[in-house]
Structure formats: C-alpha cells, structure tokens
C-alpha cells in the first residue's frame, strides 16, 4: 500500500522533529511526523531543564525565527534563572527548570492542533530514492510506503541504541523505549556514513528518601524573564520550586575508584565516544583526580512526580555500585533509586555529509536535524530541527534555502561547526565557540534573526512591524543620548558617589557616563530631564549598545572581513588532489568536507593558514 497524502515526512518527534514538523506544516506543506512511541513526543529523557549557558541563546534565536520551544517552556517552567547576570550581557543565559510531563504534553498538543500535520506511531525502516538520488518516500515497519517529496531525519538517540548499566545491557532507546533498529542500514545503503556516539544520564531518586535539610536550596529569579519574544512577561511571574545543592566526597570517589573496572566505559564495552563537557561521575573522579569533591544539583522532574534528577552524577556503573555511591552524598544517605543511571550508545552521522541547509550533499530532498547530526542537548536539536524543517519546506516549494552564518547567530555557529568540523564527541554549544559573541546576545536575537523567519514565512507582518518599531526606538534613543550634555549637578554627584564612580571635573555627554562600567542608562534617569518613558527591552538595548560600543564596532569590522572570505567561493568540482602544494593531510580533509567558501575551508580542523594561502593562490590561477 502507498499513502500519497503528504509532501514531507519527519522521522522522529523529539525536540528536533517537533520543530521540523511544525515549521513544514506552518509553511503550508502536508506533513507527517513519525515516532516509534507516541509517548515519547518532545520527551526530555535527561536533564529537566531548557536553556543554560549559550543554549538559552539558541532558544531565543529559534523563537525569533518562529520555533516553538521558547513558547512551550514559558508555559511549563517551574523555576527560572538568568545565569551570569553579574557578567557581561553577551554571556547572560536564561535557564528554566521544566515540568517534563507538562512540557511534553504541551508540545504534543501544539502538534495535534497544527493544521496540515499528522502524527503516526511507526518505525520508519527505509528512505526511498530514485535513480537521481532524489527522495521519493519512506517505508515503515509494516511495509506501507509513504510517498513524499522530502524527508527530515530527526532520529535523536534511537538508531540502534543500546543502554548500559554496568554489566546489564538492553537494546532500547532512552527510558526503556523501543529503539529504531532498521533505518541505519537503509541510510548506509544510500551511501551515508554512520558514527557511534555515547551519552549518559544520572539516576532519579524518590523525594521521600531525600533529606533536603542537608542541602543548600537554590531559588529562581524574580522577576522571571520569558524565553519567547511573544510571551507577555506578566504571564511568567509565578510561584517557583526550589532545587538543591550538595556535594560528593572522598567516600564517593573511593567507591567509584574501587569499582571502575565494572564501568562499561572503562572495561571497553562501550564503543561510542562520549562528551567531555558533561562527563559521567566516574570520568570526573578519574580525570580530575585532584578534586576531592564535585557539585551535585537535585532538580525535580516535575510537579506531579516524586522523582528527583541527580544533576552532576551521570554514570554507567552497575546498580549495586550506584546505590552505594549515591548514598555517600549528604542528604542521600537513604536514597531510593526509582530509575538507574545509564549510558546510551547510538548511531549518528558525521555532519560533514550535510550542506549548510542541513540537506545531504548527495541525496536531494533528504534533510537531517538534531542529535543524529552529532550534537547533544535539547536546544541544539530543536534549533537544527527548525532549520532542517524550513529548508525541507523551501526545497519542496522550490524557494531559496534559508541559512544563518557564524556572524548572525549561535544557530549559524552550531550548524557551521557540525557540517565543517569532524567532531569526535557529541557537540555542545558554548558561548566561546561564537567568534562574534558580543553581537550575538540573547537579548537581541529578535533583531538579528526575525527577518529570517519572515523570509521563510513563519513570522507575520505584524510581528515584523513590532520589531521595526522597537528598533526605531532604540536607535533614536541612542542618538539622543549621545547629544545630551550633563552638567555637574548635586543630583549627578549623588548618583555617581553611590555608584562609586570617579567624580567629574568637567561636564560630559550622557553617552560618556553610560559607558562607565559602574553606571547604567537607567541609573542616570534623574539627570536626563527630557527622557521619554521606554519599555524595558528598549532601555536594555540602549544601555548595552552604548556601553560596549567599542567592542561591538570591532566585531562588526571583523564580520566584514569574515564576509569577504565567505564570499570567496570554491568551485564545487575542485579537484584537491591536483593541488599538489597543499599538504596531503589537508588535501584529504578538503576533499572530505568540500567547503563551499574559503572561510569555511579555514574553519576545518587541521587546515593551517599555510594551506589556506596555497588554496587562495590556486583559486586565483583558475
């Protein structure tokens, strides 16, 4: 039987799949979203939070373009915090604890209510292509074929996944869910290379077995800042739950060291490569042996469950060791484990097989987003899912693809890193990966990227108008402030004294005062008589743009240079083997990644500036 009702198939309904499916349907295409288990839609199988350092940026950017994650977490968070608030604005990052169940249910509801989108519980076993390597459909386990024009792979960690808890191994996806055991083979037949990565999660412990009095409570912020630019800030001011902080100690570490041989990671049972940034507790103890204690955060899994997530202690040690280990931690002496910690191994693809549109270089109409591309994290997955979905829709609609470059957003950095670098471990976003960090702030994601969503068709005229008005207010206020001369009045003296600012000897402009690290735009309101009342987000932009002007302009200049290099296109049919003056290793890398521009070539790991010089000279001779 062949079903011909759909334009696009999305394989997987995790964070990437949900965004991809919603984007395609919202762009007017008949979309079917497959999932191996209807109960795993928008599942959060690991940490119970969204956002955090640099991940918060991704959510804001995704929201600016028209994604869903920010809106759903705004409705389902139970605690929220702006991290790094005392640091510069470029590294402020929003993080919210989610009620996991509520989050999944809300997202599922959004999918169900979306016109043009159907959900289907089925394991896709094959991607079908014609003789021109063009996607024609997908086949599911029961043998039924779905004819589609494009397909988006959002398989997460489900491909041939295997969970390990000490010597106990199960061939399942996360949380005991069914794995997808057939699709990898179909992808390999299409010539797609497959990698194997690993990640892990800590135990969940029941609330009534935890002694919170031995831990330090962690509170959320008031007021709460919403993730979505469309959320009314008043709607997110609500009662928040507490998290708790405790620590491992020498006893914990001793138990781990004694039993390290029983960890599948250390005994060699695990073949996949794990992430370094989110190491298991056994990794922390072995690799950072000089530390005699590690932080452990306890976070609730939701409002309607008594399970607590033990952040900082993921592990693949056997259950008996886990029990001993967790019970050494203050407050967890009588801990009862509801769900064991485990490691999970899965198939994914080296991202270099993809274009920047997230379409496979060699298969027309096959797109890929999320953890399958070698990333980790819900936010990284959602961001890619959105872009893969948009570009699958653009492909079917025969419109120009939409891409984001490294100077435009973290999403650009994420995708560029994934498709031009050979990551040997699950890739996680970090602010230090963004070259133009001061410009790519979470507070200006709308100004940077909303037009991309508008171009795609996910953002309305009205939303664009709102943004334009905001931008006008910001620029005219910056202009005004630069022209205001302030005299040394008693009011000003008092403000400056309170802020610990060096007294002025002559009058100056308001702009110069705002530039002082200890003063802000808002603090100087009393000496700025003609100031209009402006919304908070406008005032924030004025303050940041004035304060960091020097650095911001410098990054803008760097971006111009980057764009120039980015414009230096490399012919698609270039034969690197014939450029004998490039080192053999570099030639191999370039042949493997086939960068589209000189800038991309220079980003590839192991390509030295000398290689780039040779390449540029060669391009001139063409």
């Amino acid at each position, binding site marked *: 039987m062949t079903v011909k009702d759909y334009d696009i198939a999305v394989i997987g309904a995790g964070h990437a799949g949900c965004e991809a499916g919603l984007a395609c349907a919202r762009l007017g295409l008949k979309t079917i979203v497959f999932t191996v288990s209807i109960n795993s839609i928008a599942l959060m199988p690991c*940490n119970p939070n969204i956002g955090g*350092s*640099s991940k918060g940026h991704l959510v804001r950017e995704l929201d600016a373009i028209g994604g869903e994650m920010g809106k759903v977490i705004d409705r389902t968070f139970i605690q929220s915090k702006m*991290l*790094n608030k005392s*640091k*510069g*604005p*470029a*590294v402020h990052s929003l993080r919210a604890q989610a009620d996991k169940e509520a989050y999944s249910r809300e997202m599922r509801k959004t999918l169900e209510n979306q016109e043009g989108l159907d959900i289907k519980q089925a394991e896709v076993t094959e991607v079908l292509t014609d003789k021109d390597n063009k996607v024609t459909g997908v086949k599911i386990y029961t043998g039924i074929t779905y004819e589609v024009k494009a397909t988006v792979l959002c398989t997460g960690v489900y491909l041939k996944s295997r969970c390990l808890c000490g010597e106990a191994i199960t061939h399942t996806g996360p949380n005991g869910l069914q794995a997808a055991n057939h699709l990898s083979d179909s992808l390999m037949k299409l010539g797609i290379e497959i990698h194997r990565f690993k990640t892990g999660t800590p135990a969940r412990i029941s609330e009534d077995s935890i002694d919170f009095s031995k831990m330090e409570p962690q509170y959320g912020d008031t007021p709460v800042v919403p993730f979505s630019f469309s959320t009314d800030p008043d709607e997110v001011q609500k009662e928040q739950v507490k998290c708790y902080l405790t620590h491992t100690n020498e006893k914990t570490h001793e138990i781990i060291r004694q039993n390290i041989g029983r960890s599948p990671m250390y005994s060699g049972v695990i073949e996949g490569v794990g992430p*370094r*940034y*989110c*190491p298991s507790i056994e990794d*922390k103890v072995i*690799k*950072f042996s000089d*530390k005699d204690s*590690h*932080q452990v*955060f306890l976070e609730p899994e939701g409002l309607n469950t008594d399970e607590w997530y033990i*952040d*900082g202690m993921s592990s693949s040690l056997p259950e008996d060791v886990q029990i001993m280990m967790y019970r050494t931690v203050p407050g967890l002496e009588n801990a009862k484990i509801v769900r064991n910690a485990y490691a999970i191994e899965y198939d994914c693809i080296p991202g270099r097989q993809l274009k920047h549109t997230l379409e496979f270089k060699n298969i027309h109409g096959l797109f890929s987003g999320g953890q399958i591309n070698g990333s980790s994290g819900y936010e990284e997955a959602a961001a890619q899912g959105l872009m893969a979905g948009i570009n699958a829709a653009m492909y079917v609609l025969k419109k120009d693809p939409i891409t984001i470059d490294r100077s435009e957003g973290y999403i650009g950095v994420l995708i560029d890193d994934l498709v031009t*670098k050979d990551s040997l471990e699950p890739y996680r976003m*970090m*602010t*230090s*990966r963004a070259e133009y*960090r*001061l410009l790519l702030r979470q507070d200006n994601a709308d100004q940077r990227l909303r037009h991309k969503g508008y171009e795609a068709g996910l953002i309305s005229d009205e939303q664009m108008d709102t943004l334009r008005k905001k931008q006008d207010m910001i620029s005219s206020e910056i202009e005004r402030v630069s022209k205001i001369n302030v005299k040394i009045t008693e009011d000003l003296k008092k403000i400056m004294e309170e802020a610990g600012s060096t007294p002025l000897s002559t009058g100056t402009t308001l702009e110069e005062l705002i530039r002082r*690290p*200890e003063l802000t735009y808002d603090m100087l309101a009393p000496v700025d008589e003609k100031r209009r009342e402006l919304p908070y987000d406008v005032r924030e932009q004025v303050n940041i743009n004035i304060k*960091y002007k020097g*650095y911001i302009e410098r990054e803008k200049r760097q971006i111009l240079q980057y764009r120039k290099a980015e414009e230096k296109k490399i012919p698609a049919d270039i034969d690197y083997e014939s*450029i*004998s*003056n*490039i*080192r*053999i*290793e*570099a030639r191999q890398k370039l042949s493997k990644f086939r960068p589209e521009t000189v800038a991309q070539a*220079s*980003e*590839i*790991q*192991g*390509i*030295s*500036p*000398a*290689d780039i*010089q*040779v390449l540029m*000279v*060669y391009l001139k*001779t063409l």
Partner: protein
Amino acid sequence: MIAGNDTIAAIATPSGNSGIGIVRISGTDAVKIADEVIRSRSGKSLDLFSVNSHTVHYGFIFDGNTVIDEVLCTVYRSPRSFTSEDTVEINCHGGMFVLNRVLSLLLSKGARLAEPGEFTRRAFLNGRIDLSQAESVMDIISSENEFSRSNSLSQLRGSVKEKVSALRDSILHETAFIEAALDDPEHYEIDDTYKNELRDKVYEILATIRNIIKNADDVRYLRNGINTVIVGKPNVGKSSLLNLFAGFDRAIVTNVPGTTRDTISERISLDGIILNITDTAGMHKSSDEVENIGIRKAEDEISKADLIIFVMDSSEKTDEEDIEIIDKIKEKTSIAVLNKTDKGSVITENDINKYTDMPVIKMSVRENTGFDELRDKIKELFIKDEIRDNEIYITNKRQTELFKKAYDSLSSVINSIDRGMSEDVYTIDLMDAYAYLGEITGEDISDDLADKIFSEFCMGK
C-alpha cells in the same frame, strides 16, 4: 608560486672562492634531469631512479661527451626532502666557474632557475616547515654576520616556536578558565582573587614580550646595522673620519669648507658590528641654496639615526653653531669626537659636558689615533649585554610587529580588569593576543580553546 611541479635549480652555497659548492635541484623531474647529466666515469647511467632516498652517489657531470666535474650527488625522495619534492644535491669541486656551468647544464635540460628563497617557499607551501622557520631560512640567506646567522639557526631549530608556545599556552589556560566559568557559572567562579591572579599573570607575560621586543631592537642593530650619522661644522674632518671607517676614499675630502654637499653612505663592518654610516654636509648657517638643501637633508638623517657621531675641531673653540648642533642631537644616542688633537687642543671634555652628557672621544683622524676608543665606545653603547643563549632574538619585522600587537591586546586586558569591565571582554583581548602570537608561528587556532576547556576544567552539572 603554485605551479610547483616544475623543477627548479640553483647554486645552494654562498658565492665565494671555496673549492666545494652545491647545486640543488628540486621538483618532479629532479631525478630525471640529474640522471641525464651525472654518469659513471665510463659514461654509463647511474640509474638514480632506482636508488634509495638519502643515498650518496659518486659520478661525473657530462655535457655531451665532455666531463665538467667530478661530483657526489645525494638523492632525496618526496616527501622526505626539505621541499617535500624529489630533490638532488650535487656536490661539485671546481669552484664558482664550474658551479655555474653545472647549473646552466641543468637549466638546458629543463630545470628552471629558482627565484631567491624558492626552495624555502616550497618547503613552507608543502607544510614542511612553519612560517617562523621559513622566515628564519630567509634570514639565514640574507644574514651578513656571525651573530645573526647563529640566531637564525636557533630560530630554525624552533626556539621562537617554543617560547611563543609557552606564552600562548599560558594565555589559553587563563582564557579557558574564564570561559569555563562563563559556561558553567555554578562550578567555577571569577572572584576578585582570581582577577588579581590574572592581572599578575598578564603582567608577567607582558614583561616577557617587552623583553623580546627590546631584544629585537638590540638584534636589529646586529643584523641590519647601526644607522650612524656623522655631523659637525664644515671642515672638522667628518669625511676623513668616514674614510677612516671605510678604509678607502669614498667621500671627497678637501680643505675647502662645504665640500660635502650631499649625504654619503657607507656600510662597514667593525669587529662583527655593522655600521651604516652617513656623512653629512657640514652644518652651519649658509646662504648657498645647494648647501642649505644638504643641511636640511642632514637634519632628516639625524631624525632616523640610531647613533650620531658629532665631530668637532678640538683646535678651535666651541661656538654657537656647535651648540646648535648639540641641541639638535641631544635626544639621540651620540658620541662627541674631538678631532685634530694633533693640532693642539683648545677644547676639553669639560667644555662639552657643560652642554651635554654625551661621551667624548679625543682623536686625530689624520694620525689615526683614538679610533680604537671610538670603536669600543660604539660597542659599549649598542651591545650592552652579552647575547644570551637562552633568550630569543626576533630579527624579523613581521614577527616583531605581531609581538607588539599581542602586547597591546594584553595591555587592554589589564585595562579592562582595572576599569571593572565585564569578564567576557577579557577573553576577547586574550584570544586576540593568542591569535597574534599564533600568527608568528603560523599555527591554526580553531579548536584550541574548546579542547583546553574540556581537558583542564571539569565541566557540566
């Protein structure tokens, strides 16, 4: 040059009368061309195609049926050669004339004459050596004295690379800590104690770089020579002094005041130190237009000079014109020479010291006395310390400029800390400094930071 597969040849040893010289040939056809011209005594092929890499072969250079020289040739196979290409080095015995004949013969067989430094450029383009090493080779090629040659050799062995790597590693470590703290604020904290530590560390790095830049100046004198300008009133013996330095009559010396109307330059070697000496027109008030142009030019030379030798006639009293000259040169490193002591001195050291504290040397150019004292004073002024083996001496302008840029970036870090700027801007300047230092050795920086963060800091909740 990218069309690098062609075969290049050049004489690889310095020109001179040494009996042995090397002709080097590199590129795709290097072995083929060598095999054509080098044969056994009886004219049989040596079959260089089938010999192992890094082997030496004895033979004779044949031009048709004529034997030009008896040679040893070494065959290096790609990529195990300096250029990474097939390379043959031919050790000839017949001096410059024969070397040139061998080279012409190779060129007639299809090799192309190498451009200056082309072997090195190929080695660099083929990834055989890094940028600082390539530059050192170029420095060796152009170095003129013993010190700069041995320093180039030590750069080539990688001492710049080592020093720069140590500085970069230290910068990267701090950046990684700050980034780790920004990425994972619940695990790592940037408190005031850390800021003070960071300030101390950055100051330490700044001191090292400052020293390198200062050394670079010292070395510039050694390598490029000390720009020396001889000034003084007309007819005090400036040109005669230049001639004494040069050892032959370069400037026109007459006893008519104002004979030298233009500046005259000479590059001379003095005990291993190079002086670029410029003689100037005598400085005095003149109505002669041509002479005045010469005087203005002299003032211009003074501003560019490293050393001024101020010559006076010790048999005449100091006058206003002398004082005016002293005024013009007082900001510069200068030596006063009291010439013509043979004619009887009326000025003494004390008379000069009333106006300036520059050192004073008494000499008679005509009788060739006092020259040793002058030479020793120059050495004392410019080669203050012994050249130390464990220091690095940058001789390359590009490298010095990059050190200066790194210095500026690191100074901004200090400024940011002191002004209370937010921590994320520290790392912008730290990474700039890191990148500038990386450019010195031509290193790729793309993923260093992430690797450092993960390897040194325990990340993640």
